[in-house]
């Protein structure tokens, strides 16, 4: 077995393929449960496996399949806990296997794809996983009731045991497995009420932490397959460029360079070690056909945006009569906001391992998209898609970058070309210069207020590329939903609202960057509404509250954050507060930032108070962790994040010129959770969008200077 190293971790991925749940072929995605006829097979196998997510064997060992890839968000802990809670089993003893690629069994029930992004872990899976656990519990209870000859209503469970309430008789689950497996699977099992939850809503320690503090957690980069070679790929520095010709003579002369092959993304040097492959790369002589993007620079993109902003766009929202309202205003406010391209900078550079042989294809990858990876494997290897084996490792960060297929293609093509298992690893410059960037955008706003200072018009034109359109996931000529998220649905109660989008795409690859559209739209909307509040002469929190009558959940998190941050109370000299609130990915988040600005212009964020309403926090400590992490991600972008283009190339290459926030700049963070009881919302992304505007609004309150372009430039806030 080619997974010797991976099996060292607690997740034994291949065990799953050969394990009892493999009988589940024929199950349908979601929660269609198997026919009675299948149960006999399960009883013979010695386990109760009412669906693809959970099984219990005769020793009482509970195995849960986790489909949501572990990229740091704690899904490996939270998802199984949902099942375990409804099953009423000891979570500490549950074995968890990471799902192989098999969308028929394991796809997200809402999207239908076995791909993880969009903060869709808990929110898309909770109902299905609760039912999965509850179905097994229901069968065990029924089996015990049958054994005892009592009514089902008289039995209950108590941690891996069925209990007959009147007599106090008890029977462990392990003793009921065979009998329960003969029973029909309840299609709508009774779920617990929140007061009955054993794990959900309480602190759950992460299952993967012990493996992540001693180096034993296996990330994609750590995969070792027998006979594996290591490759590094020289890519065209210009987006979309191709190899014209190359000379590998010098590279091949290096000891331990095994081969040099051309692949779609460039020229791969294959060696016995990464360091040797790197040296081989340096010895390559490649002539590139740089293609049309070689003419593109940040300045030319900016000019294109400025010109685009003077043209009418496609209308995404049009409430009331915007022209009339703008003309009628007693006071108007206008502003332009700009944000740059951003790279994800996962700590683990892109990599993947593949073994393509005649009739077989196996992939080991830190991927957010096991289903897509399986399809890519089929396309390149010619092996039927259901026969392509995908082993998802731990991901050293995802943030949207690892849903892409480019690094998977690298490994598959190189393995196929050399006829051996190959791990392709990227360098940090490869990673920064060959990404899928958060779009740079240019945004024009106009607002009008009446004589009493109430806003009567909100006009917004957004210029930039569309991620969905560029990727072919939305029709060219339509309005890109990702670009409009957060601007089209801005929540404030203004009678006349007009939002337009102008598609300007200059061939820079764009992608889903943690919180996607809201990552920039939160900044622009929440900064501009602050400008309008100022024009109205109102307090920023009060102004927002007065316009959130129809958005009570926005209002509630804003009020919570403001209260916890002591909004309005006196502050130390030289400090100010700013606020922002936003809905994204099913959740409502507000932040209040406390900042100071040194005479050098350096911004210091002392404290960030966050509030989130994600419906119900299943794993509250990890909700906090996602809010904390999202804030640092946003702060890095605010203070440092900028990818610039010169002759079709990315100018930045490593952490010296694409810096990350470090511990000495991390603010104190508080996170307050509001459990509204509404349907579950997302967690990984909603903590990002409100951080930059809350900070910039605080900077304005302190200095009177409005930050309208990111990142904050050194010098902008300098006091002479």
């Amino acid at each position, binding site marked *: 077995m080619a997974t010797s190293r991976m099996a060292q971790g607690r997740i034994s991925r291949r065990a799953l393929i050969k394990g009892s749940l493999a009988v589940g072929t024929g199950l349908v995605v979601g929660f269609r449960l198997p026919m009675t006829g299948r149960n006999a097979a399960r009883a013979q196998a010695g386990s109760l496996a009412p669906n693809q997510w959970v099984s219990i064997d005769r020793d009482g060992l509970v195995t849960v399949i986790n489909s949501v890839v572990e990229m740091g968000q704690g899904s490996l802990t939270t998802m199984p806990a949902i099942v375990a809670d409804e099953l009423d089993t000891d979570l500490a003893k549950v074995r968890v296997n990471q799902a192989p690629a098999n969308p028929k069994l394991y796809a997200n029930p809402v999207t239908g794809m076995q791909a993880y992004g969009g903060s869709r872990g808990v929110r898309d899976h909770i109902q299905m996983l609760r039912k999965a656990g509850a179905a097994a519990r229901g069968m065990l209870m029924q089996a015990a009731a049958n054994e005892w000859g009592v009514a089902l209503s008289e039995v209950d469970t108590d941690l891996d045991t069925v209990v007959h309430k009147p007599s106090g008789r008890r029977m462990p689950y392990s003793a009921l497995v065979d009998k329960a497996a003969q029973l029909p699977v309840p299609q709508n099992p009774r779920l617990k009420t929140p007061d009955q939850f054993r794990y959900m809503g309480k602190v759950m320690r*992460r299952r993967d932490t012990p493996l992540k*503090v001693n180096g034993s957690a296996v*990330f994609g*980069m750590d995969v070792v397959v027998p006979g594996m070679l290591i490759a590094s790929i020289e890519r065209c520095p210009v987006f979309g460029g191709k190899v014209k010709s190359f000379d590998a003579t010098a590279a091949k002369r290096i000891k331990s360079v095994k081969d040099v092959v051309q692949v779609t993304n460039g020229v791969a040097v294959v060696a016995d070690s990464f360091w040797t492959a790197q040296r081989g790369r340096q010895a390559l002589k490649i002539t590139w056909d740089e293609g049309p993007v070689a003419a593109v620079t940040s300045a030319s993109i900016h000019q294109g945006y400025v010109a685009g902003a003077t043209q009418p766009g496609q209308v995404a929202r049009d409430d009331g009569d915007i022209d009339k309202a703008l003309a009628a205003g007693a006071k108007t406010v206008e502003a332009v906001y700009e944000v740059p391209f951003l790279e994800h900078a996962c700590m683990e550079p892109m990599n993947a391992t593949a073994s393509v042989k005649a009739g077989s294809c196996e992939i080991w990858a830190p991927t957010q998209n096991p289903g897509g990876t399986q399809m890519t494997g089929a396309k390149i290897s010619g092996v039927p898609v259901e026969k392509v084996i995908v082993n998802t490792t*731990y991901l050293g960060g995802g943030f949207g970058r690892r849903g892409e297929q480019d690094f998977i293609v690298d490994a598959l093509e190189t393995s196929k070309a050399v006829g051996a298992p190959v791990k392709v*690893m990227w360098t*940090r410059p490869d990673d920064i210069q060959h990404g899928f960037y958060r779009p740079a955008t240019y945004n024009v706003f106009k607002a009008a207020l009446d004589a009493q200072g109430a806003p009567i018009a909100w006009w917004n034109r957004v210029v930039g590329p569309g991620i969905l359109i560029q990727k072919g996931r939305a029709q060219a000529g339509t309005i890109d939903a990702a670009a409009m998220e957060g601007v089209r649905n801005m929540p404030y109660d203004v009678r006349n609202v007009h939002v337009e989008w102008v598609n300007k795409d200059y061939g820079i690859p764009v992608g889903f960057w943690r919180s996607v559209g809201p990552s920039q739209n939160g900044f622009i909307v929440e900064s501009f509404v602050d400008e309008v509040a100022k024009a109205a002469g109102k307090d920023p929190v009060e102004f927002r509250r007065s316009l959130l009558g129809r958005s009570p959940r926005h209002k509630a998190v804003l009020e919570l954050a403001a209260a916890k941050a002591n909004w309005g109370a006196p502050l130390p000299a030289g400090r100010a507060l700013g606020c922002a609130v936003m809905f994204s990915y099913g959740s409502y988040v507000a932040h209040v930032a406390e900042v100071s600005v040194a005479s050098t212009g350096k911004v210091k964020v002392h404290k960030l108070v966050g509030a989130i309403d994600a419906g119900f926090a299943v794993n509250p400590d990890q909700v906090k*962790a996602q809010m904390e992490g999202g804030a640092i991600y946003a702060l890095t972008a605010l203070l440092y994040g900028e990818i610039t283009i010169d002759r079709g190339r990315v100018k930045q290459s490593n952490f010296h010129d694409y810096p990350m926030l470090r511990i000495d700049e991390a603010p104190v963070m508080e996170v307050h959770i509001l459990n509204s009881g509404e349907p579950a919302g997302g967690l990984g992304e909603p903590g990002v969008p409100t951080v930059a505007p809350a900070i910039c609004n605080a900077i304005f309150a302190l200095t009177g200077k409005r930050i309208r372009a990111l990142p904050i430039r050194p010098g902008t806030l300098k006091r002479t």
Partner: protein
Amino acid sequence: MIALTVNGKTRQVDAPPDMPLLWAIREKLELTGTKFGCGAALCGVCTVHVDGQPVRSCVTPIGSVAGKKITTIEGLSAKNDHPVQKAWIELDVPQCGFCQSGQIMAAAALLARKANPTDADINSAMAGNICRCGTYQRIRAGIHRAAQIKKAGA
């Protein structure tokens, strides 16, 4: 051949002396807990101890550490019970975890030299280690907690 003493064992590595220690550890000795992040001593994920000092293994040639005592994350403790590891588990510090081997090695080196580090000590000792998941607040709390654990166990 170069003799490297890693986690108490001396092993012969067939590699040129200018090979960075990181690649000898990861690929020759198959100790993959030490990570590759930048290759330029900018991020700290490759941090190991050389004679007790935190060192960026991605820019340290193996020829320069022959005969020295090298400790990787795998050698920090036998049972996951170094005070830093205990504190990290208690507070669930890691998210994706990729940078944490380096964070922990840097934190352990700090604690070895300062029993009760202040926030300022933590800033100066840990600012070379990037965490893209943004676990800094928990790293800071984890170091303070590890100091307590160490003190209680002493």
